[in-house]
């Protein structure tokens, strides 16, 4: 197979660009995480978004209605749409992150729906790790609760660029502006203590449909957009880091063929920055420099590559490069570091993280082993209090940890780069993923 035998016609051939939105704009993709419990009306909100965008199918709805009726629920329990596992239905709980999909002519949306109770932190951290936006729900009658603050903190820890607080059940407080503003002010004050770059607060009623798809006539005092309008238009393109060139090499393509000879390409997904032919680059950890000869895809060469494109980079010089190496610019490189300071969220129920523990690490496309040299403190995510006497991190606990790795990581601070700043910790005996790390400092 060669590039020629792929799609009849390549990019130049004017291939169909897929669905186009209003004004011929192509659809883009927004990933968002939802947080809240069943009581906050989260399932109702998601059900409504799916229903109003025609992403909920009649056979799904009929099945949910039948099960709801058989269980004697007073209303159609939309949580059953994805609480499809036997144990979830039997126990009426949500076990795991569920992914749901809907689209409008402007955007495709991927919802990572995280359950409110069981394994809360682990699931929320997982859902937030890839999210462009997080949606937090509160019940207007109850106002902010401990859980709302915890959600906001985790979103800021995971550096979710956009946060939306939905004050739900406004119909049950007579659509009161005063109630809404009190909750909005309190939350805004709390968020100011965290690192929340963009916060929007929307008064809604998921059940009645107020401010979901269209602006509600019941709240003329609210001047902001309806929720879906905001989700469709929130500007996410500049959330990506286009400044720091980071290209972790995934795989070296070397065709064993008589037709393609002397080909050596470095395949990977652009983590950040823009790569162009002619650019001077440096390869880490070796430190060798070269120039980009070309940036290729199966559809032909491209003038530049940027996140999240998966491409193949060819260099002008023959350098020994393998998986786990990283291509950057000589004057803008990540740390090449074996001493890592990180915030770690522990995810294993069987064994806690302990000082002296040895683990496997996966960071970008690089594998390493690490020993825990120190635990500075454990963070109480409700009060943000730092417990410096903590000796270990148990399931769903978060703390600041110092690690020493067997080989250098090519690392940035997580707050600067979510791809080269995040890593997972794996138990070498069980092979389970037991922790998530966000790099604070690498030396």
């Amino acid at each position, binding site marked *: *197979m*060669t*590039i020629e035998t*792929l*799609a009849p*016609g390549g990019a130049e051939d004017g*291939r*169909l660009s*897929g669905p186009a939105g209003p004004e011929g704009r*192509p659809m*883009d*993709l927004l990933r968002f995480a939802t947080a809240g419990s069943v009581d906050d009306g989260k399932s109702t909100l998601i059900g409504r978004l799916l229903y109003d965008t025609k992403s909920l*199918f009649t056979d799904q709805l009929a099945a949910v209605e039948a*099960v709801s009726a058989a269980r004697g629920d007073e209303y159609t329990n939309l949580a059953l*749409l*994805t609480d*499809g*596992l*036997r*144990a979830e*239905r039997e126990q009426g709980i949500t*076990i*795991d*992150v*569920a*992914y*749901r999909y809907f*689209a409008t002519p402007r955007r*495709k949306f991927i919802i990572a729906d995280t359950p409110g109770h069981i394994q809360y932190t682990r699931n929320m*951290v*997982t859902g937030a790790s*890839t999210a462009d936006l997080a949606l937090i729900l509160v019940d207007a009658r109850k106002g902010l609760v401990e859980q709302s603050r915890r959600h906001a903190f985790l979103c800021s820890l995971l550096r979710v660029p956009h946060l939306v607080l939905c004050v739900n059940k406004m119909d049950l407080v007579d659509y009161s502006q005063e109630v809404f503003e009190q909750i909005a002010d309190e939350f805004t004050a709390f968020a100011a203590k965290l690192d929340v770059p963009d916060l929007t607060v929307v008064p809604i009623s998921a059940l009645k449909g107020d401010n979901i798809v269209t602006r509600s006539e019941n709240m003329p005092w609210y001047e902001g957009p309806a929720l879906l309008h905001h989700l469709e238009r929130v500007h996410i*393109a*500049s959330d990506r880091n*286009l400044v720091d060139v980071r290209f972790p090499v*995934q*795989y070296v*393509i070397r*065709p064993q*063929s008589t037709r393609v000879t002397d*080909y050596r390409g470095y395949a*990977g*997904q652009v983590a950040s920055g*823009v790569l162009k032919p002619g650019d001077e680059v440096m390869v880490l950890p070796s430190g060798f420099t070269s120039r980009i000869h070309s940036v290729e895809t*199966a559809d032909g060469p491209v003038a530049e590559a*940027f996140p*999240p*494109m*998966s491409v193949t980079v060819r260099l002008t010089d023959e350098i020994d490069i393998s998986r786990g190496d990283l291509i950057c610019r000589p004057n803008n490189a990540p740390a090449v570091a074996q001493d890592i300071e990180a915030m770690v969220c522990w995810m294993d129920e069987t064994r806690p993280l302990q000082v002296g523990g040895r683990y*496997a690490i*996966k960071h970008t*496309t690089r594998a390493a082993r690490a020993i825990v040299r120190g635990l500075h403190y454990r963070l109480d995510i409700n009060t943000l209090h730092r417990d410096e006497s903590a000796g270990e991190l148990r399931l769903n606990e978060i703390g600041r940890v110092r690690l020493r790795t067997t080989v250098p990581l090519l690392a940035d601070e997580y707050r600067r780069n*979510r791809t080269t700043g*995040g890593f*997972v910790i*794996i138990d070498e005996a069980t*092979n*389970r*993923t037991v922790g*998530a790390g966000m790099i604070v400092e690498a030396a």
Partner: protein
Amino acid sequence: MTAPAAYQVTHLDALEAESIFVMREVVAEMERPVLLFSGGKDSIVMLRLAQKAFAPAHIPFPVMHVDTGHNFPEVLEYRDRRVAELGLHLVVASVPEALASGLVRESADGMRNRIQTPVLLEAVEKHRFDALFGGARRDEEKARAKERMFSFRDEFGQWDPKNQRPELWALYNGRHHPGESIRVFPLSNWTELDVWHYIARERIELPSIYYAHEREVVERDGMLYAVNEFLPARAGEERFKAQVRYRTVGDASCTAAVRSDADTVEKVIEEVAATRITERGATRGDDRVSEAAMEDRKREGYF
């Protein structure tokens, strides 16, 4: 810094980039991957993504078809032609052979969906495959909505939904002990409509039964089944001709057709965008067994 509009990608480009990333991770980290290729549209799209992920090199793994013996001839013809064009090695895990050897027994209702699983697992063990690419999507079915991109399976091929590895960022954990394996779903985040938009954009050829054609059918459980050697009309069932197409392609004895005039990819996209019934709900007898039919099969090692 504000990014120029030029640095944006479409949702299809983003999905494609993610799927290619996942495929490259598997090939870089696993010993013996294989791609499950049924001749269905999702596995055809996966094959295209595999071409793109490793170009200009060949696809660096074989493909496997779990053959129930109940095939649509158009699909079998497509499978063999595509495999030959790409110079791929095809492994066929055959249910009829497994029936003959006694590995499995025909179920009472004649459906071969469930008995595919032991046949698949035997082939995995025989060829020592440690990573299996599957075309399953999370939008298809509620048990699949909770699947990981990298789904760990124990030595019996079982899925344990309560004990899945957390999946953060794009850091996929494919570590496993000998005998265990990972099912990998590169199309996890695609919807049926995304798949069709991609087929249109990439001008991917599909088996003809995906487009509207006239076929002799019977109506059973509210679905239209083609009458063929695997699915004879039952007493009292009226055979009639109808304009139909297939939304999914599975075992010919349990996959139903839908009424449709959509004979081009553009018309199919219009139809899929307007439909109010899920593809599996409209066409799969095997999912109608119970509320948790898919979960139960997946626990046993199904796709």
